[in-house]
């Protein structure tokens, strides 16, 4: 493909991929964070044990986590049409992306929150802290570093999913790779999209890790 056609194509691709990744990550956290907090609190060893509620949420998360993304995308097409008005394109892809990523994100957050030293939580309880105070003043701030690392990994995974969605009508770099590289044998386009995806992944990784390191107060300076 000539360069003057390739550049605008790739710019559009990057824009769409970033758009899907950022918006999906945002909504996945919007759903995943409360879910993770609920899992941590209601677990049998949590601050407000509710074994039944915990088991139901735990099972739902596992079910969604075990459906491969491409199949999930097909399964939720009716819902996607309902929300986005159509089942193809970048905006529509956000719906299955969020549904696939939210349980994943919930597990990532849950494991970060569980890393918080139980001694510090006990100290807060001994001062008369309420459960919301413990969550927002102790657990989340203390898990901050681990949460940022988790967010980095999660958005990387969502970036990967968004590229995969190109196979069945999603947008962005994944769709370019499949329609030009796979269907039309344009290997140069395929290679460029791969390189761009690698660069995007690196960018997310470097930015995320730098933020987590810079904000961690546990390290001696």
């Amino acid at each position, binding site marked *: 493909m000539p360069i003057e056609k390739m550049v605008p194509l790739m710019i559009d691709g990057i824009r769409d991929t970033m758009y899907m990744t950022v918006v999906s990550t945002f909504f996945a956290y919007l759903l995943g964070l409360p879910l993770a907090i609920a899992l941590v609190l209601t677990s049998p060893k949590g601050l407000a044990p509710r074994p039944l509620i915990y088991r139901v949420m735990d099972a739902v998360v596992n079910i969604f986590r075990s459906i491969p993304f491409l199949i999930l995308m097909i399964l939720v097409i009716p819902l996607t049409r309902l929300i986005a008005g159509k089942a193809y394109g970048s905006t529509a892809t956000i719906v299955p992306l969020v549904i696939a990523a939210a349980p994943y994100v919930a597990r990532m957050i849950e494991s970060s929150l569980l890393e918080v*030293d139980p*001694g*510090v939580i*006990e*100290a*807060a*309880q*001994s*001062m*008369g*802290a*309420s459960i919301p*105070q413990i969550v927002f*003043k*102790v657990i989340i*701030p*203390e898990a*901050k*570093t681990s949460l940022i690392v988790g967010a980095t990994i999660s958005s990387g995974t969502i970036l990967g999913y968004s590229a995969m969605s190109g196979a069945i009508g999603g947008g962005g770099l994944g769709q370019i790779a499949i329609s030009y590289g796979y269907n039309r044998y344009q290997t140069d386009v395929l290679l460029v999209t791969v390189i761009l995806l690698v660069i995007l992944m690196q960018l997310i990784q470097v930015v995320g890790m730098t933020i987590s390191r810079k904000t*961690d*107060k*546990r*390290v*001696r*300076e």
Partner: protein
Amino acid sequence: MALIELRHLTKTFRGKMQTVEALRDINLSIHQGEIYGIIGMSGAGKSTLVRCINFLEKPTGGQVIIDGKDLATLTPKALRALRQDVSMIFQHFNLLQQRDVRGNIAFAMEIAGMKKADIERRVDEMLEIVGLTDRQHNYPSQLSGGQQQRVAIARALSTNPKIILCDEATSALDPQTTTSILNLLREINQKMGITIVIITHEMSVVESVCTHVAIVDNGDLVENGTVEQVFSQPKSEAARKLIFRKAGADAGVMGDRMIRIVFEGNASSEPIIAGLVMECHVAVNIMYADTRDVGGKAFGQMILQLPEDHLQQEKAIYYLQNKNLRVEEVNGHAH
């Protein structure tokens, strides 16, 4: 009425395979201004006991009454309010790693819902008391263990509590740091009249700061009273073990029949052992002797190994008893 009243306190942990009786029928009264040591071997149930005092552990039976309030009858909200009067410090300090010293001290007051300006003022006062003003912007990972415990003490004091519970607060610290932390606790007790409960497995901690002591052994409270009483007349096996373990281990006592004699004030001016040897012609071996300052009073004790001959043993004991000394058998369990 005592500030802290434990009545028939029982705590049983029910597991799938077994149930563990961590505490059995504990009765204890702690009055305002006391420094009450609760001592026992590890696994004796003392950490569970202190957690029952602020209901971090809910007892299975019995009552915990603090300042006239039965904790079991309080609503969750009232219980949280009461906990602001009962601060706690821990073996591993349990500071927020992502907040600096100021932030950690402010934390307890934020929980209590104090105004920001008041918090800032009070943090300055607390920093002054624990001597960490120059470290106020450091994070816990940049502080030594002793400094971290000082931050924890400042945090505990900030809400003006009536009681401070210390759960093995000096166990992770070296001896010098332990002394300085204990001195700080004593100062707080004397200047502010705050009642302190100290959980420990170290007799030296009880000796140096406590006014009263309770001995917990295998879930039972076996003995309690003033430190003087319990040290000079230990009644229970567990108390003897704890007191003599220190004495015996230091001196490496071993032998057949041994007795322990206790000097209190008047008797120490008289040459008792010389008299025993000269008047009764009984040779004794001094296995261990020391004088300690317990609650401001000199308190001497000596462990003597007696000769094999039974008659000579009785003679020596009779002589010592006639000098108005308390004589106790030191049996095999003692060391």
